[in-house]
């Protein structure tokens, strides 16, 4: 703390009844706040550095061929585009599903409430991997039955390729979780807003669209970012259908050459870097969303 000695801000020397002194004192307080903040950031940065060094030591202790990792880096890296593509497509569809789901959950109608409640329950209550298998294996059987019944076009809709099945499973699963996020976001908007809108003669839908959603979205967007980060990692499950994303590529070489630690470390590092980039983007987005809150 000696480093920052004399940094304490005191009102002494200021005549706080004078508006000009008030402003100067406030400026000094703000500067002090900033200094404190960057000092804190510096300390946290040091801790991170120490943690990285510990991790480095742990990695040195592992019996791992770093040359092997280096040699296969490029091959596994190519999978990043598939991982990103599948995750982006899935989070987009999941967002739409979640919006519909939340509206259903909050709807006064039994049918919407029932359907969305059932959807959330079934897709949140079963493992994602099992859902992937059921969608990949089960839907084509329904499709073939439909074809047999004389609806070839409808039947073909049910016969999905590996990537399509993966995106559908991820979307449905995450859509169910995000339904609850959207519901909570919408419910976080004060009841008074609804009443005020109603007093102005706005309909239920108008209120939702023009009053409630713009406020709810501020709560929801950061949560979507969070789900996107989780999804990038869960997308590794689609490798079971032979989609060549990061995990699939890493796993084939791991099995082939018995280099499990090497390839799993490599895959883990790639997911980590990928999610760190997402985290950074999410932080910026959150800052932007918060702009209206305080100025």
């Amino acid at each position, binding site marked *: 703390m000696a480093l920052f000695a004399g940094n304490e801000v005191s009102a002494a020397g200021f005549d706080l009844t004078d508006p000009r002194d008030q402003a100067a004192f406030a400026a000094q307080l703000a500067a002090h706040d900033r200094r404190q903040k960057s000092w804190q950031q510096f300390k946290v940065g040091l801790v991170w550095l120490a943690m990285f060094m510990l991790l480095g030591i742990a990695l040195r202790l592992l019996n791992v061929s770093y040359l092997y990792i280096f040699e296969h880096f490029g*091959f596994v890296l190519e999978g990043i585009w598939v991982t990103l593509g599948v995750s982006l497509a899935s989070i987009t569809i999941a967002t739409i599903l979640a919006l519909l789901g939340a509206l259903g959950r909050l709807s006064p*109608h039994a049918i919407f409430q029932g359907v969305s409640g059932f959807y959330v329950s079934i897709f949140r209550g079963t493992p994602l991997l099992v859902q992937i298998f059921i969608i990949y*294996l089960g839907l*084509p059987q329904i499709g073939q039955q439909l*074809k047999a*019944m004389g609806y070839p076009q409808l039947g073909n809709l049910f016969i999905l390729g590996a990537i399509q099945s993966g995106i559908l499973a991820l979307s449905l699963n995450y859509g169910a979780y995000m339904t609850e996020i959207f519901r909570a976001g919408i419910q976080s908007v004060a009841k008074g807003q609804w009443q005020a809108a109603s007093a102005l003669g706005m309909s239920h839908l108008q209120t939702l669209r023009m009053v409630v959603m713009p406020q709810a979205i501020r709560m929801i967007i950061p949560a979507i970012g969070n789900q996107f980060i989780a999804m990038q990692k869960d997308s590794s499950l689609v490798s079971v259908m*032979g989609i060549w994303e990061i995990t699939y590529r890493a796993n*084939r070489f791991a099995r082939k050459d*018995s280099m499990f630690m090497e390839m799993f470390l490599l895959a883990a590092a790639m997911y980590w870097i990928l999610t760190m980039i997402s985290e950074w983007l999410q932080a910026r987005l959150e800052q932007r969303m918060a702009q209206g809150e305080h100025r």
Partner: protein
Amino acid sequence: MQKRISLLALVLIVALLVAACSAPAAAPAAPVATTDAAASDAAPAASGDLLAEILARGTLRISTDPAYPPQSELVESPEKPASTKCTGEERTAAEFQGFDIDAAVEIAKRLGVEPCFVTPDWTLITGGNWAGRWDLSIGSMTITPERMEKLYFSQPYYTTPAAFFVHNENTTFTAPADLSGKKVGACAGCTYESYLDGTLAIPGETIDFVVTDAEITGYDTDTSGLQDLALGDGVRLDAMLTALPTGQGYIADGNPVKQLGDPVYFEYLAGAIDKGSPLDTTSFRAKVDEVIQAMHQDGTLKQLAEKYYGTDLSAAAAPFDIAGLKQ
């Protein structure tokens, strides 16, 4: 008003439920007729015949799991062919290498089409119901009665002896029979596991279960089991039951394991075709059998086996009576 809509909705749901419950009663009758009916709708150009569709398409779509050298493995920086008929989700032959790959490429060549590969998980291949996503599995698949429920098998293209492996330092086990009651590893869901729990039945072969009451550990792949065995004698495993070539390959890599006794049984490894195919597979199956038998007769498979395994593992597969399977 609201109440009335809710009531209407409830009535609708009840109606749906009734419909859903009555549907299954009608469904079981369908399957027999289904295959033919579905086939005629699926690909009018191919008039419902898989072989005709393959020839029209110009590609043979083969499933492979490239984690099993020397059968199938990835080529890291392949020279991609200048032009290919394989679609975006399919892979060209240049991206793989191995015995299965060479055999599959040869089959496609003799059909006069381009081989394209897909790489689904092994369980998805053996489970059947491929929904027409690929045509043929060339994945060193053992013919078993369970798999025959879901898949048609082709003339086997080679055999694999199954053998026990123990740690180098072990001196107490002298024959496979000594492993009764011990900790034995095998890949989960594979024939090796069925052998250990005494349920294995290979059509056309009488099996002698010399190891009984083994404490079985199932592994995702044989290699992870062998790794556990290499940790030390009895540390995690006393023995591992796996394919002779797999175990020998692991030893050749310099790992401290050794083979215990003679192979305990032989597996016939064949191509597989989906029984639930939306198209008629009859002529395709006959053609594949014919092609594989020709590859036995002219020595192609013998040559390939010697190239990849160092011995001719194909000889015992040629006389296998495929008609005897009564598929």
